[in-house]
Structure formats: C-alpha cells, structure tokens
C-alpha cells in the first residue's frame, strides 16, 4: 500500500503550550487510521492542521495524490467532519449538500440524493436540519464531507454523544466508506473500544506527543499473553532457554517475559530444575489493548 498522508514533525503552539508537538504520522491509502488520546491530547488540533483549518507552528504535512505527488489540488480531495457537523440549521439536508456541492463544483443532484441514501437519510425531505437528531446530523456531516468524492476523510470524534444505535450506525458507515468507496479515513476518538472495532492502524497521542504508531497486528502482538518467570539464577536460566530453542523472551532484570511456548510452562520449569535452577514464580500474563494504552500514557484509565 502507498501512503496518502504524512506529517513531518508537525507542531502547533498556543502561547507557551504545545498542543501538538513534533508529530509524524503515516496514513496508508485505503486504511482506517485511529487517532486515540484523551480529551485535550491534541487530536482535534492535529486534524485541523491537516484539514488546513489551522496553521502549523512548525513542521509540514503532505497529502499525496494518486500519482504519488503532493499538491494543493489534493486539498480538494479531503472531506472533513471536525468537532460538530458544520451545517446550516435552517436549511434541509439536501440544500446543505447542494451548498457544498456548488463550492466543490459538483453539479450532479442525483449524486447528492445517492449520498443521502448512502448515509441512511433517504426520506428527510425539506425538514430543516435543526430538527434532526444528533445521529442524523453526524451522518449528514459525513455526507457533506463526501460531496467532493474525497480520497481522505477526517472524522473527529464522530461518535461523541451518540446513543448505542447511533454509534453502531456510524461504525457501519465507516466500514462501508472504506470497503465500498475505498476512502482512507483518519478517525479520532477517546473511546478505545469503539476505535478498535474500525481501525487498521493506530496513532496514540498524549499531551500533544505521538507515543506510538502501530498496526492492528503489531498491537495484538504487543498485547498477546506471555510467560512471567522468576528464577533463582537468571544468568544460567538464559542458557536453558537457548537449549530449549526459546529465542523470543525479554530479560526484565528480576524476571523473564517469555513469548514463545507460553503454554509449556511445566516443561520449561522441569528443564530449569534439571539444571538446579529453582522456579520462584511463574504465571501467564497479558494485557488488553486498554492496558497497553494506559501503560503507554502512564495515566489513569479514563478512556
């Protein structure tokens, strides 16, 4: 896969505070990139800079066209839903779509009706948007963002404040956008559980700093179970592991974290005993994605 967006040490400073600090993210074409962080972590500011709504204090970003070149024209291939859906409350859903279509130079009214159908708003007629539910407004916001057939969609907290049904609808919509329309999506959220249901890759942002960037598989690997083992002779234990063919382990000082043959704790203990090494403590440990996130951000679980 090729990259559609890269940021290079992008920074945004308000006064003396770094809202975003030297963040470099890489988004591949056709993937859903989940930007996870607490409230105030810098997710919205980062998305605003990518969308051209805020000026970076330093650093650059490139939105890369299908031909592999970054250009200003690619700005016209971005769809944005940042914070609340930006809609004229007194106009109908169709007229809101039409207004953005005119701005984008899109002249096909049938396409706009298709978009309303696609986001599940087929029969809203001339009802002004101010009478829509929050979920309907969010879906309309996504439809407006899609008017210019974007290659990259930026969705900032699109499930905020939605009820469970609304969350499921938006989630399904994101899946369909990616699968049926091959749109690359950056979605930010502070709800890790929901993000994990749609994202292919994650960027973990905390206090303006990108702490980690990893694919689903890489995160799964980091979170998979391992054997926690404490022995009476750590130096000699390592030789036993080698003799058993265990290579994927980590010496954590007072204990080992063994990632190979996790289910064979008994055999490992027996092999150690044969070398007169006493097993002081042994158990299978693991961490959920949430635990991994908390450990990384060093914080209290509030997501």
């Amino acid at each position, binding site marked *: 896969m090729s990259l559609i967006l890269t940021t290079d040490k992008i920074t945004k400073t308000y006064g003396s505070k770094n809202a975003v600090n030297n963040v470099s993210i890489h988004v591949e074409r056709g993937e859903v990139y989940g930007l996870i962080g607490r409230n105030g972590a810098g997710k919205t500011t980062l998305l605003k800079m990518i969308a051209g709504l805020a*000026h970076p204090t330093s650093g650059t970003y490139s939105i890369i066209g299908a031909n592999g070149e970054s250009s200003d024209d690619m700005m016209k291939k971005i769809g944005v839903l940042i914070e609340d859906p930006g809609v004229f409350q007194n106009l109908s859903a169709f007229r809101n779509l039409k207004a953005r279509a005119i701005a984008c130079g899109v002249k096909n009214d049938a396409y706009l009706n298709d978009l309303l159908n696609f986001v599940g708003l087929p029969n809203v007629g001339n009802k002004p948007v101010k009478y829509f539910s929050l979920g309907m407004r969010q879906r309309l916001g996504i439809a407006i963002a899609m008017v210019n057939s974007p290659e990259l969609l930026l969705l900032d907290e699109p499930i905020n404040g939605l009820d469970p049904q609304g969350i499921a609808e938006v989630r399904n919509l994101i899946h369909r956008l990616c699968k049926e329309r091959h749109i690359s999506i950056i979605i930010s959220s502070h709800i890790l559980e929901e993000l994990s249901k749609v994202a292919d890759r994650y960027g973990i942002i905390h206090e303006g700093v990108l702490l980690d960037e990893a694919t689903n598989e890489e995160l799964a690997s980091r979170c998979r179970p391992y054997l926690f083992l404490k022995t009476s002779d750590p130096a000699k234990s390592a030789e036993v592991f080698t003799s058993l063919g265990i290579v994927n382990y980590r010496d954590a000082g007072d204990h080992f974290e063994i990632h190979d043959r996790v289910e064979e704790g008994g055999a490992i203990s027996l092999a150690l005993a044969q070398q007169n090494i006493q097993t002081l403590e042994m158990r299978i440990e693991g961490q959920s994605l949430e635990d991994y996130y908390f450990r990384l951000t060093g914080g209290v679980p509030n997501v």
Partner: protein
Amino acid sequence: MFNIFRMHMYRVSKATSTWVMGIVLAAFMLLSLGLFIFIYNNPFTFMADAISVSMNGEGLRLYPADAHYLFIQSNDALLILIAIFCVILTNCDFTWGFAKNTYCLFKKKTELVMGKWLAMVTCISGVYIVCSGFGLLSSALFLRPFCAEAWDEYILGFFISYICLISLCTMVFFITSLLKSPAAGMIMGILIATGIFVTGERLLDLLIARIGGASAKEMTQVMAGTASYFRISDYCLDNVFVSYRGSMGAGDQIRTVIVSLVYLALALGLTIYFSEKKDVRT
C-alpha cells in the same frame, strides 16, 4: 472563487432571513415614500408650487439626484438593513460551522474571502439598484416631475454613492470577519448609519481648527466646509458617504471616490491578510 460566490448566492437565496429582510426593506421604502409625500404636499410647498406656476408657467421640479439622496443616502433604515445583511452574510457560515466544509478545500484562503465578498457586493448592488429605481419611479409618480436637464448629475451621483456604499459594506465585512462577531459588525453598521461617528468626526474638525487658531467666523466656515482648514471628516468614509451630493464640485467628487476606494482596498486587503494568517474558528 466563482464556486464559492455561487455557493453563497445559493445559500442567501434559500435563507428565510433574506426574504424577511426583503419584506422589511420594502416596508421601510414604502414608509419613506409616505413620509416624502406628506412633506412635499404640506401647505407651504403647495404654496411654493403655486407661486412657481404663476412665475414660470410650470410647478416646482425635483432633481433626480435629490430623489436618490432622499431614498438612499439619507435613509438610515436602508443603511441599517444593509449593514445587518452584510453581517449575516459574512458570519453565517462561521456561526453554523459550515466554513469548515469550504475552508478545507483551499490552502490559500483568498479565494474564499473574494467569493464571499463578491456575493455580498452582488446582493447589495441588487438592493441599491432596486431601491434607487423605486425612489426615482415613486418620486416621479407621487412627488414632483423631474428636471429633464439634470440626469447627468444623477448618473454621476448614482455611481459615486454606490462606490461609497460598497466601501462601507466592505468595512462591515472586515470588522465582522476579523472579530467573528455579528454584534460588533451590526454595532459598527448602526453607528455609521445613524451618523454617530460623523458627529464625532465633525467635532474633531472644529478642534483641529481651534488649535490652528481659527476665528469664530472661520469655525462656522469649517462646519460648512468652506474654510481652508484641514477637515479630518473629509477623509472619513462614513462622513464622505452621508455628505456626498451630486452637485458637489469636481474636486470633492474625486476626493469622495478616492477615499471610498482607499477604504475599500484597505478593508478587503486586511480581510484577506487576516484570513490567511489566522486559524479558522467556528
């Protein structure tokens, strides 16, 4: 730029507020007409008309430029409505957050500012032409016949006061865009329309003349604009607009146009500059 212009025109045409303001404007114009009919047909002017007929063989006539002044330049209600319209048009997409959908399309924001400004100018031009046309037509029908030889003064006045008006609207556009505050824009528009700034500017003129050692007679001339003392109000857009008359000398006509164009260029340039420099806040 033209797509943005078309988008704003579409939005304005579909907004309820546009039609409400149109109705209010029509009502004000009719009220103004009623007032002028009343003034022009009071017993004193009726007598003056009769004297004119007996002396010249024809009744008093109205200059088209004066009709234009009555219905446009001296019509506070029209100016206030135009200012409110400018504020709504300028700020509406920011109020509702729709600006996020358009500002993300352009790295350079100049096109967005120019598109919106062009839409504002188009709407104001429409209102100006309709109101001026209404003023002329209703004056001819209900007030007095026009002086046939005075149309060149009207045409010149029509274009110069148009430039002033667009310049004033661009100032409101700038203030509203800069502060992102409809209230600030409306206050500015109302202050201009009601002449509060003009009073202050003319007081400054007197102060400058007094500091320059003007006599009491010269102070009177300063107020009348016939003294040779520097008058700051001659270079203030609001005063230039309300004091402009088609019968002014060529020098004053040129000054009016130059002052208006300088303010217009400054306001538009600063709006573009700040749009490029500042983050989009919705």
